[in-house]
């Protein structure tokens, strides 16, 4: 297993209820698994569920992109890595990767734009200073790393010579 230069603060495994009629982990549960990775990042930088509860805020998904690179099956061990791509007063741009941690292949990626907002009004709420500083510190370290090629993608059918006919997720 290769060590990732990104944060490694979350892991898990494929639960039975995540399996669909194709016999593999269903698309929706990848998004759920990545939400848990986002929660791990938030806690890592001091934005714990209790703290948001007390402040009446939440970290909401505004936009997301998922690549389904290789299927995973019930019980498969999962390892997540997280790159902090950017942060501003109340928004956060992250890129997660999910690896199947037995055969060590990339299963999926999830790029997210999140907003720290008020549960009451839905209006943006600036990150607390210490949280913003922690996120900026990680973003600064990650800015020196090469950007993964799965970042910044758009959905579409690419018509290149002998277009890739990959196995799909």
């Amino acid at each position, binding site marked *: 297993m290769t060590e990732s230069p990104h944060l490694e603060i979350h892991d898990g495994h494929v639960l039975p209820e995540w399996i669909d*009629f*194709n016999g593999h982990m*269903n*698309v*929706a*549960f990848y*998004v*759920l698994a990545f*939400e848990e990775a986002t929660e791990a990042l938030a806690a890592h930088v001091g934005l714990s569920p209790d703290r948001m509860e007390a402040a009446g805020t*939440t970290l*909401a*998904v*505004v*936009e*997301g*992109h*998922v*690549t*389904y690179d290789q*299927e995973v099956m019930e019980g498969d061990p999962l390892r997540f890595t997280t790159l902090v*791509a*950017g*942060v*501003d007063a109340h*928004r956060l*741009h992250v890129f997660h990767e999910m690896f199947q941690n037995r055969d060590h292949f990339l299963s999926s990626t999830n*790029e*997210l*734009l999140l*907003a720290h*907002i008020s*549960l009451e009004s*839905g209006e943006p709420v600036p990150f607390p200073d210490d949280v913003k500083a922690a996120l900026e510190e990680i973003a600064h370290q990650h800015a020196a790393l090469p950007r993964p090629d799965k970042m*910044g*993608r*758009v*959905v*579409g*059918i690419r*018509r290149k010579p002998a*277009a890739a*006919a*990959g*196995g*799909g*997720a």
Partner: protein
Amino acid sequence: MSAAEAGEPIGLFERDDTLEPRWFDAKGRLRAAHLVEVFDRFSGMVAHVGLTREYRKENRRSTFVVEAHFTVAQPLTARPGERVKITTQLIDHDAKKFHVLHRMSRGEGSAGGKAGESMATYEIVIFHVDMENRRSTEMPDWMQARLAALKADHDRYGRPQEAGRKVGL
């Protein structure tokens, strides 16, 4: 020959649905994973092009999502039990895959906003898969013809503004 092949208008596929209370967390947030779950319930489009349960079973074929992009217009305004409308537009296709954009809009009598207001989009590329080797494979000619007729019809709606986006700050 079906109406589609005869060149008669088909229109976008529409489906009514309800946001199930179990998809909301204790703070009343609809989680992104469940948004994907609603969209993944698929539309009349799948049946229209012939990707029925019978077709899948008899031919050992299925469909896998390989890439997805979602946008959430107003993260906190969805309400448990809210009636929503899902519309589906075919954007593109080739012999093995197709590209669609689903949109969730508010239904009549919505508590969270005006009926017809866009709440979220889910843009995906789906592969037609041979379940013997779990790899992408060409669709039969008749299915490709149905997709071509559908694309000719849906092109008149133009490209949705949420299509082809990248995630970023």
